[in-house]
């Protein structure tokens, strides 16, 4: 049977492609933000802040196109579920960009402070894990692969653990107030990266909804990034 809503479906595909581009950009921003914070490079921090402006613009553009499609096309079934996913992912990516901006601002706020190697390594590891999650999320969406989406919560576990344990690393820092100030800011960076991990898991949930019509909750409520009492 011939396709009879080509223009509408092309617009849907185009919106999805745009959002995948934003996800790609978000991954690069995570990389830059982590590098900026762990090396103290303010130029990279500035690049992250500038890049976020374009994410914010795309967010508004996608939202407008989404409203127009809803008003004019009244999508149904898998089209409707895709619309739902696009709206959700659009918001999620915008917030992801905001988290990288938080890290960039923390880089500025810690300019000149002495860094702690053990914590730098942890932040770098978290950054690598989160970026791998973003790439997996993008792949899962492109391939329409629910199984790949279901890998995301497991990938998010070490991110959560590293964030939870960051507190212990800060305790080890000792009494140097300048190092302590950097280390407490590093805890906030870890928290931002942990949030990005959760946001990617969220995209995975959206994909499963698109593919199956089933609502799934990958993240266990109340756990995740919250510090746990030993």
């Amino acid at each position: 049977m011939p396709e009879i809503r080509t223009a509408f479906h092309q617009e849907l595909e185009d919106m999805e492609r745009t959002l995948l581009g934003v996800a790609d950009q978000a991954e690069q921003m995570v990389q830059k933000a982590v590098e900026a914070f762990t090396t103290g490079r303010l130029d990279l921090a500035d690049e992250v802040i500038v890049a976020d402006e374009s994410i914010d613009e795309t967010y508004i553009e996608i939202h407008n196109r989404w409203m127009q499609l809803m008003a004019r096309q009244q999508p149904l079934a898998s089209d409707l579920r895709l619309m739902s996913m696009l709206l959700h992912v659009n918001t999620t990516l915008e917030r992801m960009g905001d988290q990288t901006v938080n890290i960039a601002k923390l880089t500025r706020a810690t300019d000149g402070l002495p860094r702690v190697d053990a914590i730098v390594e942890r932040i770098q590891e978290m950054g690598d894990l989160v970026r791998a999650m973003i790439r997996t999320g993008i792949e899962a969406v492109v391939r329409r692969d629910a199984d790949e989406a279901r890998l995301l919560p497991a990938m998010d576990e070490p991110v959560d653990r590293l964030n939870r344990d960051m507190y212990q690393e800060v305790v080890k820092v000792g009494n140097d107030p300048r190092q302590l100030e950097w280390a407490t800011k590093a805890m906030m960076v870890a928290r931002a990266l942990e949030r990005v991990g959760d946001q990617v898991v969220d995209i995975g949930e959206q994909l499963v909804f698109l593919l199956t019509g089933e609502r799934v909750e990958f993240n266990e409520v109340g756990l995740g990034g919250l510090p746990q009492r030993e």
Partner: protein
Amino acid sequence: MVNPTPSGQTTSETMDRTHTEAATRSAAPVDATVVDTVMRIEDLDVYYGDFLAVKDVDLPFARHEITALIGPSGCGKSTVLRCLNRMNDLIPNARVEGKVFFNDRNIYDPDVDPVEVRRRVGMVFQKPNPFPKSIYENVAWGARINGFKGKRGEMDDLVERALRQAALWDEVKDKLHESGYSLSGGQQQRLCIARALAPNPEVLLMDEPASALDPIATLRIEELMLSLKNEYTIIIVTHNMQQAGRVSDRTAFFSVDVDERGQRTGKLVEFDFTDKLFTSPSQKETEDYITGRFG
């Protein structure tokens, strides 16, 4: 169209709903199983001569709900609708096999009076078709044709009640004796709904009731349907999926099979809550149709 002979008492009694059914009706159904069916189609095939127009339909209709029948042209949805009050009897060569239960009585049993069926299961058509009579007479006819022999005052009350239910009273109360044709298209259609309600049916069949109306008149009809479902069961055929989405509780999607000789036969593909069918249909054929991936 309809034989004015007063109906047989037996038919009327056996088609009455039972109290137990009414009592077990669930306020919020939890799955697509219809708990309290007012009508039920079983193993229905409809032929026009040798031509099999619709096959193998099994479909329940829940009391006090709106059920939409949707699908492409030629899928048999209007044919199925007409089976529900034996309107197909009036089409030469039409033959119905299978059963159509109305309150547990098969309306195709030989001793059932089709006129009584049509009193209990009213119908509204695509194009407003008022009679060339006054607004009052259009509605009163609906009652008289079914043996209403009340006094003048009683008839006045009945006409007013039907016009109020059809959300037309305020617009016509000062010109009840003007011609039905003096009304706008949307008003004429509501007049036809009032006429269908006058005999106090249990079920109202609507065949594309708004397709000849402008968008505002269409929305009025839809609002009217929603207000009527507390007292009636409504079954609507519509080409407009958004309309099905706006008004119906459940939707039946029909499609067409084409055999090797090119003969097209309608069939029921999927029946579910409208929410479910329009967001996550279980059949690919439904998905393809409602997302426009089907020509």
